[in-house]
Each structure stands twice: as structure tokens, then as C-alpha cells.
């Protein structure tokens, strides 16, 4: 193996055992010692499958068909059974996405950390073991916290759990560490801390790191090199500074434009359509159906890697020919919007207090939403933003204070409201997979609210609603499980639109969606707002605010800590919580990771 290369993957193919359908097709990559490679892609692209294959492992139902994974000169895929066991955790280690599930709930974390060391190094003495364990803890920022080892996983916070998981991956000083989205599921502040830790580790250990993520911004701040996957294949790879600033592949370009940015340097633009399932991957370039630059050859021939520059490869027939700049639709100001602080706001909440089974969750919250404007409610989990949204929607009864819609008081729960009020306020749930009845067709789902419409309404309300969310009428006869997450969320929005609401409450409606799909939905919501719909947009991601909201309210511990017009708050936050949230947001460094070799 060439000198200096810690990892060399060649033509890796992973397929579904039962059908032979490839999930990862012919992927190659390489890493030098001490380098960090960001492996980026959206759901279904095969990045986790690839990450696991780096340990010679395939999940149930999948099988590594061919290719080689050479780490430190040894091809893992040529090994069997015990030999492979000996290398896993020692030569190459894995940091899981969800530490809470990856740690054995029934055993103390110390035991789980210790066994990683002792099973691979059986000859160590007890003091040596202890020293190495403490060293590992220090490496992950848990120095002098030996008492943590005696706890069970559920007694640790999310951040601590993840650090223990990282410690387990480090303790044997492996040549390659594979990190699979290790900060997903952590709140923004903890995420930032863990990322700092990882940066430190990358700097001090001499290991190569593969960092798998769907979050371009996180990857840009960590990785020297980046490899973007789409539909089981490589799309583009190269130094992160270059790929993220001057992408060559149309998919990567589209992805970058879909990344939320609190500084609002570009208008959020999504990629229409969705990624194909493994069984439905088209011949030729997998991205062709969604690509605005596609030509005939793209639909028939698999694009070979094209060297755009030194170390920068793009798997595209039109690489280097037509450059899609990222300035296309930048600075496109949103259409004129209604003034803030108008005569009578659509929604006025005064001094709202709420409880959950006796425990207070909201205290003295006051907000206002003007017609035709969107208010973003931002905060970490536990800040009370969802409770606020639900209380306004009539889904959370335990509250007091005044909630006025259009000058009229709003009942605390749905049955206490008038028909007109129930129609006027509609709520979109976070999880597109739970908000539609899986046993009903889309048609039946959309017909449900029709019952509550006053007579003499629109002709053909279903088609009209689908039109407004850009869904074809063919979805009417499908079942929810046949639609993608983005499509389901659009159905949920269509369902809300049927009642011609005045206020749309969106509760983290894009959190479960891929970045490119998220951008499409955000654009859709913004369009709806411009058509006159007022909105309450709840999110934990400050980066989304510029794309949708004119006003913003920041919440922490059940109280409003800051409010005002969005551009002002984001540019000059006055509360420490807002500042902390802004600082913790990973930023897509278009200038690239700060000059690392």
C-alpha cells in the first residue's frame, strides 16, 4: 500500500442479500494518516452502510459483495471470524450515532469501556488498565471524572454518553476511527462541545478519521477532505475547501444551496424530487432525473470519475463544463411583506403559563403574530416551544393567560373553540410518519377535514390543496407508506390548507427531513406565507430563521428571553442564550477548514 495512506477502499460493493440489489456500488476512497474525511450524503445514500463496511460489517439483510478495505496494509474483507474480531475495536473503531442505544443499558459504562481494552490486550496489569482508562477519559474531556464509570448509561447526559462512546473508540489507539453522525440527537450546545472534543482528538491522535454526516456545515468545520455520496455512489470528492466552495457536481451544488444559514447569505433552495430507492436506481447517472444539467449520456452511462483538479474528483459527465455557481439566486429579497406591529395582530398571546401534569413548563409568555408574517419560535429542547405551539393550537389544555385570535379569545382546547376558530388555526406535526393514518389513502386523509368546512366552499378542494403544495393528483390513491418523508409532510400541509386557515403552526416540521427536502418545504411554506397565510414556525435551528420568518422569539426554560425582528436579532443578539445558540451553530465554511494539511 502506498506510503502515508492509512486507509484505502477500492471498488466496494454492498448489496441486499435477498435480491442482489446494490446499496453501495463500486465506491473507492483513500485517507492519509492523520486526515479527516467527511463522508456526506442524505438518507438512503449508503453512507452508514459504507461506514460499517469499513469495519468489515454489514447489517442483517445486507452483504459485502466485493472490493477491498485496506487499513494499515491489511484488507479487512479478506479476513474471517476471529481475525476480524481481533481488529475491530483495535485497528479500526466505530463511534455510533445514538450513544443512548449503543451503550448496554444493563451494565455500568466503566465495564463497557474496560472490556474494549482488556479483550484486545489481555496481558495488561490492573494499574495499567486503570491508567489507560483514565487517559481515555481525559482525551474526551472527562478528566478526573472516574466516578462516571460506575454509572449506568441512563444516568449520564447525552453529551457524556457520547464522550464515553468516543473514549471506547480511542482507548486502543486505532489507525482509523469511523464516526457515524455522532452529534445527531444532541442539542446544539452539547453538539458544539462534542465537536470541539472531536477536533481536538483529530489534532492530537495520529489516527485517520472518517466522519459520516448529513450536515455539510459540521463537516466543513472538521474535515480536510470531503466525499459526497448519492444513491450508493460517489458524486464528488476532494479537499473540503475546494469542494464546498467550488463544487463541480450538480448535486453537491444543490446541496450547498440547501444548507440553512443564520447569516442568510443565500436564499434556501432545495432539489426537487427525491433520491431513488436502491431497487429503483435508474441506469446511467443516479442523479440525472433531478438534474437541471442532464443530457442524454447522463441517462444511459454511469459517469466515470473526472479529475477536475488535483485530488478533486467528480463523477459527472458534465464536470467542469457547466459550472453552477452558488450565487444564482442569492440575495433575492422576499416579496414585500406586511408591516410589523400593525393595528391588530392576528394572534396575540399575553402572559401564558402552562403546566404538564403539575410541573410548570411555560411562564409569562407573550407573543404576537401579524397577518401575513411569520414568527419563528426558537429554543433548545425543553425550552417550552412545542408546548407553546400546542397550547395555541388547542392541543394542550393545561394553560392560562390570554390567547386572542383576531380579537376573539381562543378556547383552551379544541372542543371549547368555535368551528371558525378551529378552522382558522391549523397545526403541522413534526413527524411526517405519525401524522397520517397509515391505514387510509391520501384521498381519505384529505377528505377528513372536509366535513368541517362550511357548505358552499370551493369546487374540488382536494386537487386545489394538492396544487398549492405541488403534489400530483396521483398521490390520492396511495398510502402514506408509499410516499417519502417530504411528500408526507406536504400532504400534511395540504390537509391543513383545505380548511383555508389563517394561521399555520409548524412544529419542527422539517427536523425529520433531509436537507435538500427541507429546503423545498421551507420554500413552499414561504410561498404560502406570501399568499397571505400567517405562520408560527417552531424550530431548534436558528439557521432556518432567515428563510421563513420576519420576526423571531427565543425561548429558554419556559420563558421568552429575546424577541424582535429576525434580521436584527440574528445580527446583534442581546440575550446570552441567543448568543450561545448562534455561536454553537455549525457554519458552512465556504472558505474551507482553516488551512490544515
Amino acid at each position, binding site marked *: 500500500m502506498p506510503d502515508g495512506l492509512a486507509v484505502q477502499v477500492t471498488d466496494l460493493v454492498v448489496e441486499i442479500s435477498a435480491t442482489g440489489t446494490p446499496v453501495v456500488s463500486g465506491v473507492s476512497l483513500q485517507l492519509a494518516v492523520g486526515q479527516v474525511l467527511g463522508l456526506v450524503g442524505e438518507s438512503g*445514500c449508503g453512507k452508514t452502510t459504507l461506514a460499517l463496511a469499513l469495519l468489515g460489517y454489514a447489517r442483517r*439483510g445486507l452483504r459485502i459483495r466485493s472490493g477491498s478495505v485496506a487499513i494499515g496494509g491489511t484488507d479487512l474483507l479478506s479476513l474471517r471470524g476471529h481475525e476480524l474480531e481481533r481488529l475491530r475495536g483495535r485497528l479500526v473503531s466505530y463511534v455510533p*450515532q445514538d450513544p443512548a442505544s449503543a451503550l448496554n443499558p444493563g451494565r455500568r459504562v466503566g465495564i463497557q469501556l474496560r472490556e474494549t481494552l482488556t479483550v484486545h490486550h489481555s496481558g495488561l496489569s490492573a494499574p495499567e488498565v486503570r491508567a489507560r482508562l483514565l487517559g481515555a477519559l481525559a482525551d474526551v474531556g472527562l478528566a478526573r471524572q472516574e466516578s462516571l464509570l460506575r454509572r449506568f448509561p441512563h444516568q449520564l447526559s447525552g453529551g457524556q454518553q457520547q464522550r464515553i462512546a468516543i473514549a471506547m473508540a480511542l482507548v486502543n489507539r486505532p489507525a482509523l476511527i469511523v464516526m457515524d453522525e455522532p452529534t*445527531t440527537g444532541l442539542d446544539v450546545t452539547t453538539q458544539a462541545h462534542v465537536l470541539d472534543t472531536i477536533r481536538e482528538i483529530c489534532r492530537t491522535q495520529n489516527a485517520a478519521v472518517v466522519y459520516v454526516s448529513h450536515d455539510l456545515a459540521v463537516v466543513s468545520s472538521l474535515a480536510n477532505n470531503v466525499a459526497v455520496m448519492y444513491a450508493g455512489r460517489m458524486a464528488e470528492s476532494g479537499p473540503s475547501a475546494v469542494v464546498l466552495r467550488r463544487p463541480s457536481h450538480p448535486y453537491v451544488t444543490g446541496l450547498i444551496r440547501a444548507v440553512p444559514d443564520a447569516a442568510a447569505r443565500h436564499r434556501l433552495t432545495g432539489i426537487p424530487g427525491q433520491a431513488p*430507492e436502491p431497487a429503483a436506481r435508474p441506469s446511467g447517472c443516479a442523479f440525472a432525473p433531478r438534474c437541471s444539467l442532464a443530457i442524454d449520456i447522463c441517462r444511459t452511462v454511469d459517469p466515470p470519475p473526472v479529475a477536475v483538479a488535483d485530488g478533486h474528483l467528480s463523477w459527472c459527465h458534465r464536470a467542469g463544463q457547466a459550472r453552477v455557481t452558488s450565487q444564482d439566486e442569492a440575495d433575492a429579497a422576499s416579496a414585500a411583506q406586511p408591516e410589523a406591529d400593525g393595528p391588530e395582530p392576528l394572534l396575540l398571546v399575553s402572559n401564558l403559563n402552562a403546566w404538564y401534569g403539575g410541573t410548570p413548563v411555560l411562564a409569562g409568555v407573550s407573543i404576537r403574530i401579524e397577518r401575513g408574517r411569520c414568527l419563528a419560535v426558537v429554543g433548545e429542547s425543553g425550552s417550552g416551544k412545542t408546548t407553546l405551539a400546542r397550547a395555541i393550537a388547542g*392541543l394542550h389544555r393545561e394553560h392560562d393567560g390570554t390567547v386572542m385570535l383576531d380579537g376573539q379569545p381562543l378556547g383552551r382546547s379544541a372542543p371549547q373553540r368555535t368551528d371558525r376558530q378551529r378552522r382558522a388555526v391549523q397545526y403541522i406535526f413534526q413527524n411526517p410518519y405519525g*401524522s397520517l393514518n*397509515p391505514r387510509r389513502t391520501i384521498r381519505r386523509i384529505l377528505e*377528513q377535514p372536509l366535513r368541517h368546512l362550511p357548505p358552499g366552499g370551493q369546487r374540488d378542494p382536494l386537487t386545489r390543496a394538492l396544487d398549492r403544495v405541488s403534489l400530483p393528483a396521483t398521490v390520492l390513491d396511495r398510502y402514506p407508506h408509499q410516499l417519502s*418523508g417530504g411528500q408526507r409532510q406536504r400532504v400534511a400541509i395540504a390537509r391543513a390548507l383545505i380548511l383555508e386557515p389563517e394561521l399555520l403552526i409548524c412544529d419542527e416540521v422539517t427536523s425529520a427531513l433531509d436537507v435538500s427536502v427541507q429546503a423545498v418545504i421551507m420554500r413552499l411554506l414561504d410561498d404560502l406565507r406570501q399568499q397571505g397565510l400567517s405562520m408560527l414556525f417552531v424550530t431548534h435551528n436558528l439557521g432556518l430563521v432567515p428563510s421563513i420568518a420576519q420576526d423571531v422569539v427565543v425561548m429558554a426554560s419556559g420563558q421568552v428571553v429575546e424577541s424582535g425582528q429576525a434580521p436584527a436579532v440574528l445580527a446583534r443578539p442581546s440575550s446570552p442564550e441567543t448568543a450561545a445558540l448562534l455561536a454553537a451553530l455549525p457554519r458552512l465554511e465556504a472558505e474551507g477548514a482553516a488551512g490544515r494539511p
Partner: protein
Amino acid sequence: MKWRPSRSSAWFRAARTTRGRVGLLLVGLVAAIALLGPLLTPDSPTALLGVPFARPGSGHLLGLEYVGRDTLARVLDGGIRILPLAAIATAAGVGLGAFFGISAGYRGGAYDEIVMRTLDVLLAVPQIILALLLVSLAGASPLLVGTAVVLIHAPQVARVARAATLRAAREDFVKYSQALSDPPLRIMLTDVLPNVSGPLLVESALRLTYSIGIIASLNFLGLGTRPPFPDWGAMINENRIGIGQNPWPVVVPVALVAVLTIGASLYADALSRATAGIELGAEGVLVAPVDEGGRDA
């Protein structure tokens, strides 16, 4: 409500697996004997024809049983009372249990507590013993056996239905209906019930298997069908003594009951595998578009 393909095809999908097919075949075989047998009886099942426990011989394919009646005739006649009773009692038990389970799960509160505590009391008594208790009070009869079966099944089904209802009622689409202020009955019928029917279906098939077993056991103990009507369970008990002389009056009903219950159980198992697939997709779901953005298989 028109039938949706995803629900009714569970029956068919189960029937297409090997397990399901074998199960249905076995059940069909025994059911045919049970239901058509009475039409094929050569001799009267109640006539005394000779020496008890006579071995198979002239005119008596399976010999004679403990009072001298023709074994074959009694075998052919002995199943017809089990199956319809089992089916009806199971349906009643499942219906009752589902009603209480779903309503308790959805409404919660005091109603839930009271219903479940009451059912818990019934559950504290092992099945056979509950039946024995009833018999000691009201005397042996098929109606009593049926009632006992209903009381045995209802609490268990209620538990399953309640658990499934709790899961379903937590889902957002139910909250949506509540936000629209749809009446609770409508929500239970159109939102909860279709999502609970999967587990209930499997329970029904299982319960049918148990019903057959319980009824046969009670008949065996002499608490069900009254003499002189033939019944497989009772036959096994009555003819035990003469196993050494003529084993057929015991062996044949034993085999029939065993085949029936095993077949029903196989099909129930196939059904449970088929319905497990509905919400999760087939085994190959690993690589389908997944639940959370950013996480794939």
C-alpha cells in the same frame, strides 16, 4: 368502509406461505371430517352393537367402544359440536375483549382502571378452573362451556387491544382528529380500530386455537357435551380404560384433535408473521427510505 388491500391481504399472504398452507390443509382436513362426518356415518352412533372394546373386524373399521357402540360412527359424529362452538365463542370473546380494551385504552381515567381491574380478577383464575367454577354452579352443558370460553378470552384480548390502542392513540394523526374536535366514537372507529386490527387479528386466530383446546378439555373432563352425544374429547376420556384392548377409540380422536389444533396454530403463526410486515414493510425494509433524514441503513 371499503376493504383496504393492506388488511385483507394479510390473510392471503399468510395462506401463501408454506406454514400457512400446511396449517390450512390440516385444519381443512379435520374440519371436513367434523362437519361432513355426520352425513357419512354408516351406522348409528348411539346403537349398541356388540361387546365393548371389540377389535376392528367385520363391519366395524375401528372396532367398538366402551359401551359397544361403533367407533367410526362416533368419530365421524364427534367433531361437529366443537368447531361451531369454538368459532362462536371465540368471536364473542374477541368482540367483548376488543370493545373493553379499546374503550379503556382510549378513554383512560377511572373507566380504564375499573375495567382493567375487573378483568384482572378474571385473569387471576386459571382457565380450566374458571370453567370448573362455572360448571359447579350451573351444571354441565355446551352453553356453559361457551360462556366459560368467552370469559377466558375476553380479559386477554382486552389487554392486547388496550396496549395496541394506547400505542395508536398516542400517534399524531389521532391528535389531529382531536384537534378537529371529531367525536370520540368516530375517532375510535376510523382512526384507532384499523390500526389495532392487526394485533387483534392475530389474537383471534390464536384464541380460536385455544378455544378448541379448552372445549375439548372440558368435554374430556365430562363437563361439556352430555351423553349420549358423541364428542371427541369425551370419547378420549371414556375409552381410556380400554386402551389395552382396543386403542382406536382413543387414538383416532386424539389424532384428530392434535391435527386440528396444530394446523390452526400453524396458520395463526403464519398470520402473525404476515401482519408484522404491514407496518414495518417486509424484511427487506432495511434499505428503503428511512424514517429520519440523515440516517440510513
